[in-house]
């Protein structure tokens, strides 16, 4: 097809809005949107897209937003949209793409990520969940951890060890796992905040058909790289206003409650305010670079700075509040009772929650220590660490 212009695209969006029935299940509308190629316009025709540049998505989104039609609640299905979908598109067969992408995008089927293990965190390539050939499929045994949404997920993207006799990066194979299969057990993992955003997933003699394999046998690490590269690609459209984020809670407390103020706290408050504003401008500059077609490595700086700042600001907030900081009120129950939040909301919660949840920011999605290595090696060009495990068969690694 010839490239579609903005007017043609808008006409297509309006045709879709015209058939919207507010009394029907929102899923009907979302499926119609997918079938019209208006789900993610940069995807291929027939798979929810129109082969258009990614930038034209905003035309669709703003028109649909103005019309007030239902969306697919992207925060709930972030792992599917951000990680599973690009992986399926890149490494899946035509049949796999057709089978999974539509229900993934509409939110009909939630996806989770089965990567980390108790013995494979920063060193993900050391993972040991075994998949063994069994007739027309595979039998999987092992344990995964830090799995958001596993309790709601229909599918999981799973990396397994299929050949223990070769060095760790070579013997892995990537699958889509049907979470309803016998032998899949999901247990909530209670975390530092008292609640359970994440899960442990135990896999015991789980049968996976070979048709659910993504990419070649032994090529799992390369497929996983596609997933991980997409983890941090998505930076939202607009620039956040000044004093957005956790600094807003502290600034509000300072403004509303003069009795909390002191000279030394003021200097600390302003030091943190300066860092928050510097980070905002840095992110704004990064977006300008992306828009100008010259992406920089500043994304790594943003992740490091975000984690550090959140921890410093939320720690200061408790000190500012004084005795009140001794109370930890969770969002609905007024206790440490386990909850299952779907999304992390820093601002709708107590200062104590912010302080504790921020501790995860320097661990999840790549620890700050690993990110420091990445900056040092890939940005500054410093020599890599001496790798003692590079040429050793996975089964012989000390653990």
């Amino acid at each position, binding site marked *: 097809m010839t490239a579609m212009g903005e007017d043609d695209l808008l006409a297509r969006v309006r045709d879709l809005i015209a058939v919207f029935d507010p009394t029907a299940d929102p899923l009907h509308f979302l499926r119609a949107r997918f079938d019209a190629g208006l789900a993610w316009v940069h995807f291929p025709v027939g798979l929810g897209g129109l082969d258009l540049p990614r930038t034209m998505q905003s035309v669709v989104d703003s028109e649909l937003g103005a019309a007030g039609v239902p969306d697919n609640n992207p925060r709930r299905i972030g792992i599917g949209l951000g990680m599973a979908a690009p992986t399926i598109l890149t490494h899946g067969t035509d049949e796999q793409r057709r089978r999974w992408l539509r229900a993934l995008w509409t939110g009909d089927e939630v996806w989770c990520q089965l990567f980390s293990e108790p013995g494979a965190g920063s060193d993900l390539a050391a993972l040991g969940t075994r998949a063994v050939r069994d007739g027309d499929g595979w039998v999987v045994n092992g344990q995964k951890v830090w799995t958001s949404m596993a309790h709601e997920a229909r599918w999981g993207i799973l990396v397994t060890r299929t050949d223990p006799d070769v060095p760790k990066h070579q013997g892995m194979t990537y699958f889509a796992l049907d979470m309803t299969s016998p032998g899949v057990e999901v247990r909530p993992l209670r975390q530092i905040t008292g609640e359970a955003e994440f899960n442990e997933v135990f896999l015991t003699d789980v049968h996976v058909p070979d048709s659910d394999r993504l990419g070649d046998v032994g090529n799992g690490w390369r497929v996983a790289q596609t997933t991980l590269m997409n983890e941090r690609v998505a930076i939202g459209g607009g620039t956040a206003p*000044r004093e957005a984020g956790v600094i807003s809670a502290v600034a509000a407390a300072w*403004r509303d409650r003069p009795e909390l103020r002191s000279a030394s706290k003021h200097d600390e408050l302003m030091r943190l305010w*300066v860092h928050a504003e510097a980070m905002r401008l840095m992110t704004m500059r990064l977006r300008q670079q992306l828009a100008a077609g010259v992406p920089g490595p500043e994304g790594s700086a943003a992740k490091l700075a975000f984690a550090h700042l959140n921890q410093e600001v939320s720690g200061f907030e408790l000190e500012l509040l004084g005795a009140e900081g001794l109370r930890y009120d969770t969002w609905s129950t007024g206790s440490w009772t386990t909850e299952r939040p779907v999304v992390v909301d820093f601002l709708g919660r107590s200062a104590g929650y912010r302080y504790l949840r921020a501790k995860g920011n320097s661990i999840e999605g790549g620890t700050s220590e690993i990110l*420091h290595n990445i*900056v040092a090696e890939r940005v500054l060009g*410093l020599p890599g660490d001496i790798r003692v495990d590079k040429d050793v068969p996975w089964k012989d690694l000390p653990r």
Partner: protein
Amino acid sequence: MTDLLYTDVEEHLRSSVRDLISKRSTSAEALKRAETDEPYDPALWQALAGLGVAGLAIDEPLGGAGASWREVAVVAEELGRSVAPTPFLGSAVVATAAAQAAGDTDLLARMASGEIIVTLAASLAGTPHAAGAAGLALTGTTLTGSVTNVIDAITADVLLVPVRDGDAVSLVAVAAADTHRSDVASLDLTRPVSDLAFDNAPVTIVAEGDAAQRAITNAWLVGSAILASEQLGLAQQCLDMTVDYVKSRYQFGRPIGSFQALKHRLADVWVSVTHARAVARYAVACVTDGDADATVSVSLAQAYCSPMAVTAAEECVQLHGGIGFTWEHPAHLYLKRAKADSLLFGTAATHRARLGGLVGLPPQ
């Protein structure tokens, strides 16, 4: 949206200045000059003036290059990178900003042509409202008294002197020939300070009253913004030098840059330089556009960039180990400049306090 990137014109200017400096001014030469009677390099300044740097921000009808503070900031980055001893900050930035606000076209035209170098005869470590507050008396058109810790006075032909008498403030011009100057041993070897004394020195009145205060305030505003870019360039150079060093220095049979204890510290410097670039670009863009956020942006820039540059220079010294502590290695020139810069136009703590008032977060 405020443009935080560099334009093609700015990048072109950067490479011209960098090219010129790399040919004419090495840190070894700056070091050699530092302990002579001529710490500034007049040939370097003339060559920079040939590129239009002396009158970069001065309007074209007056003989300047008609550029904006954004371009001036890019030159400041490059001069910070090289700690080149030039009167750029004093003359092409601070005195230019004061003369522009005062509308002194005669002075600006002579600066643009390279005929004269001008500096503001006040300690830039103070506030714009303290400038000229003590030790000076203006009687008719003669000036008597003294000012201490003035930057770029060594090469200045004309001194712009703020003088305060109670609430009345004036800005007057005095010829260097009518000034007694004593150069002092300065913390910053590549931007030394001097003490000045006037004994019935004849003056020309440049501005009086509110106009004089506006000129002084503008000098501080623009100076703070441009200094942030100098601090950015200095920090980037400290980072680059240190990265090169730890790649080539071997201990324990491997480059020391392969040790995580060092890598992580350098990654932290890179992260803060990355922030500083956005902050410094924002400040010069706001000052150039006369943005309502200009005063916030320059205090933010100074509150962030001053400690950032000091840390980058301190890490440079430490990660160079023994050689970084020698007089022979240029690391100390950067440390001295960074620390001295952190005192100009107010310390980071001063700017944090000011920001509190500006953004509705009062101290009490």
